[in-house]
C-alpha cells in the first residue's frame, strides 16, 4: 500500500527538496547551515530524528559520485563526498534505516526496517518514492539493471516466520515473493549483469547460507560454498570486473572482526577464491563491516566498532588488497549499517 506523500516525518523539512526543481528547502541556496542533528557517537534520544535535514551547497548542486550511509543508531542517512568522505548532507526522519542500494539514475533505496518502508531518494536526497513491505522486516535491497526491478530482503516475516525476497517491478507497489525453502533469515543481496539475484542469510539454526534466484525462476537455490566458510552474513555484491561475488562476513573466523570474500560462482557451486581484511584508522582490524559497496577500485562502507573504544567510521579501502583505509571519517557515526554509491 502506498503511503501518502505528505507523510509528515519524511517530507517538508525532513527529506530535502533541493534545487533540482523541487520545492523550497528550509535552507536557502547560498547558505549552508549545520542544523542540530544526531550526536556523533551517542544514540538519538528520540526516534525518528525529528531535526531538520541538512544539505550543503555541494550536495544540492554537484553531480559527482557520493556515498550514502545509513545509521540505525542516529536513525539518519548521511551523504559523503567521494573520495574525501566529507559529510555533505544529513537526512532525517527515518525509523531504522539499514541496507541501501542504488540504481542507474543515481537514486538510492533505503530499507527502513522498523517502518517496513523502502524509501527512494534522488542523488540530491529528494524523496522520490516509497514502497511498503507488509511481509516482513526489510533490511536490504538490490537493483536489477536488466529490468529495473528492486529486490528487497526481509530478515524475517511479520509472523515471526522466515524471511523472503520481495521483487518490485518498476512502478509497482505489489511485489512478488521468493524464497529459498532452506533459508530462514535473509540479509543482503546483489544482482549480476544478467539479472540473477544472489543473496545471503542464515538457516533456522543460524548457519550461513548463500542463495541464488536465477532470472525467470520462481524459487531460489542454495549455493554450496567451498574453499572456506562464512560465519555471519554481510554484504553481497556482484563484481563485474572480476566476474565474481563479494560476500561479507561480519564475524570472520567466528570472532568480532569482519572480512570480505571473493566467491567464484559456477553451476557446481561457489568457491572462495580470496579474502580481504580491512583495517580501521588505528591499524586494528575492522570490527563490524555490515554493508559495503564497490567504488573506483576500492570498497566503501563503515565499521560499526562495538569491539573496543575505537570510534566507528566510514571509510574507503583498496579492494581487493584491503588494509588501511585510503580515506575515512570517524566523526559522524553511531551505528553505521548500509552503504550505496550514487553516481
Amino acid at each position: 500500500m502506498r503511503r501518502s506523500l505528505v507523510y509528515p516525518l519524511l517530507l517538508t523539512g525532513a527529506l530535502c527538496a533541493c534545487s533540482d526543481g523541487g520545492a523550497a528547502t528550509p535552507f536557502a541556496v547560498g547558505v549552508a547551515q549545520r542544523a542540530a542533528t544526531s550526536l556523533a557517537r551517542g544514540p538519538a534520544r528520540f526516534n525518528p530524528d525529528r531535526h531538520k535535514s541538512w544539505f550543503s551547497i555541494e550536495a544540492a548542486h554537484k553531480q559527482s559520485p557520493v556515498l550514502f550511509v545509513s545509521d540505525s543508531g542516529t536513525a539518519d542517512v548521511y551523504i559523503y563526498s567521494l573520495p574525501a568522505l566529507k559529510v555533505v548532507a544529513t537526512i532525517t526522519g527515518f525509523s531504522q534505516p539499514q541496507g541501501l542500494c542504488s540504481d542507474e539514475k543515481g537514486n538510492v533505496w533505503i530499507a527502513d526496517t522498523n517502518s517496513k518502508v523502502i524509501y527512494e531518494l534522488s542523488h540530491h536526497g529528494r524523496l522520490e518514492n516509497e514502497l511498503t513491505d507488509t511481509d516482513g522486516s526489510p533490511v536490504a535491497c538490490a537493483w536489477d539493471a536488466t529490468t529495473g526491478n528492486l529486490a528487497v530482503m526481509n530478515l524475517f516475516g511479520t509472523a515471526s516466520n522466515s524471511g523472503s525476497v520481495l521483487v518490485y517491478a518498476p512502478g509497482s507497489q505489489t511485489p512478488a515473493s521468493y524464497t529459498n525453502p532452506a533459508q530462514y533469515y535473509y540479509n543482503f543481496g546483489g544482482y549480476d549483469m544478467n539479472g540473477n539475484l544472489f543473496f545471503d542469510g542464515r538457516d533456522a539454526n543460524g548457519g550461513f547460507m548463500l542463495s541464488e534466484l536465477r532470472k525467470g525462476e520462481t524459487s531460489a537455490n542454495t549455493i554450496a560454498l567451498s574453499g572456506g566458510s562464512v560465519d555471519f552474513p554481510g554484504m553481497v555484491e556482484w563484481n563485474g570486473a572480476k566476474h565474481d561475488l563479494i560476500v561479507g562476513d561480519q564475524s570472520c573466523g567466528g570472532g568480532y572482526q569482519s572480512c570480505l570474500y571473493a566467491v567464484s560462482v559456477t553451476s557446481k557451486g561457489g568457491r572462495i577464491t580470496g579474502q580481504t581484511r580491512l583495517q580501521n584508522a588505528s591499524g586494528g582490524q575492522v570490527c563490524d563491516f555490515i554493508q559495503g559497496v564497490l567504488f573506483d577500485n576500492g570498497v566503501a562502507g563503515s565499521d560499526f566498532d562495538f569491539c573496543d573504544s575505537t570510534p566507528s567510521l566510514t571509510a574507503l579501502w583498496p579492494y581487493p588488497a584491503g588494509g588501511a583505509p585510503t580515506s575515512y571519517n570517524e566523526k559522524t557515526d553511531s551505528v553505521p549499517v548500509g552503504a550505496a554509491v550514487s553516481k
Partner: protein
Amino acid sequence: MIVAGGCAQPVTAPGFLPSARIAPLGFQQHPWMNAGLAGQDLLYVTNGNAEVTVYRYWQYKLVGVLTNFTQPIGICSDKNQNVYIADYGAKQILEYPHGGTKPIATFDDAPDSPYSCWVDPSTGNLAVANDDGTSQQGNVAIWSGGSTEKRTTYGDSTIGNFQFCAYDNQGNLLVTNGSPNYPYTALFAWLPKNGTRLIDLQIPEAYPSYRTWYHVSGLQWDGKYLVIDDSYALYRESLIHGQAYYVGATYAEAQEEYNSGPFGLYVPPGGEQATQVVDGMSSNNYGAVVDYWKYPAGGSQPIASINHALDKPFGLAISLKK
C-alpha cells in the same frame, strides 16, 4: 527453564526506588520452607516487607518464606534452579538452592546497590544491574562463572544507573536504566559476549512513528526473544549482531495498578519459548496480587491469581523442579 526476575515498578521519584518497608533484622520471622519441594515448580516473590515468599507455581500455595533481608528487590534463577535474590539495601546478592532456606553463596556488590539480576546459562555468569541513585553512577556488575570472587563492572555515562538486565541465548547481555527521571526516557545498551564495554543500542518499538521507551519495568528472555516490559505490554525483540528488531507484543490488561512490577516468564523444561507470564502488583482497590497470564497470547483476564502472603510484590522468579 529460566524464568526472569526483575524489579517492580518504581513508586517514588527521584531514583524510583521501590517503596519497601525496610524491616530491621531481628524483628523478622525465621525463614521456613515446606519439605519435599524438589519435585515442585516454585514461584519466588520479593515483597515490600523485606520477605521473599515462595509458592508452588501450579497450585498457587504458599510453601515458604525467606527472611533476613534488608530490601530484596530483583530476583532470578539459573539453569540449576538456584535462586538469586538481589538485596538492594544490603548491597549483596544471595544465592539459594531450590526450596532451601539458607544461602549457599553471597555476592558482595558494595558499594553498589543491586536492582535486578540474570544468569547466563551458557557461562554461569551472574549479571547484576546496579542503581546507585544519586550517590554515584551505577553500573552492571558481572561475576564470571558465578564465582563470588571474580567481579567486573561496566558503566555507561549515557545511561547512568541500571535497573534491568537479561542475557539472550548467544551470551549477549541487554541492559537498561528502566524508568529514569526526566526526560523519562529508558535507554538501552548491550554487552556482547566476551565484550569489553557496553554499547548503546536503539530498540525499535511497536509504533515506528515514535520510538521512546518511557517506563521499562523489566527485561526478560522468553527462550526465543528478549522481552521488554513497558507499561501494560511486553515487547519481544530480536537482537541480532548488534541490531535490534521488533517482533511482537503481548498485552495483558490489568486492574487498577500501583506498584506493578516486572513480569516473570515460565519456560517449560525443554521448551523453546515461555508459555505463561506472571506479574505482581498492588493497588488500593485490589490489594496485592500476582496474576498468571497466557504467553504470548496475554488477554483481558488472568488465568489465575495469588493474593495471600504478599506485600507490595516486586520481583518474581520461577525455580523449576529438579
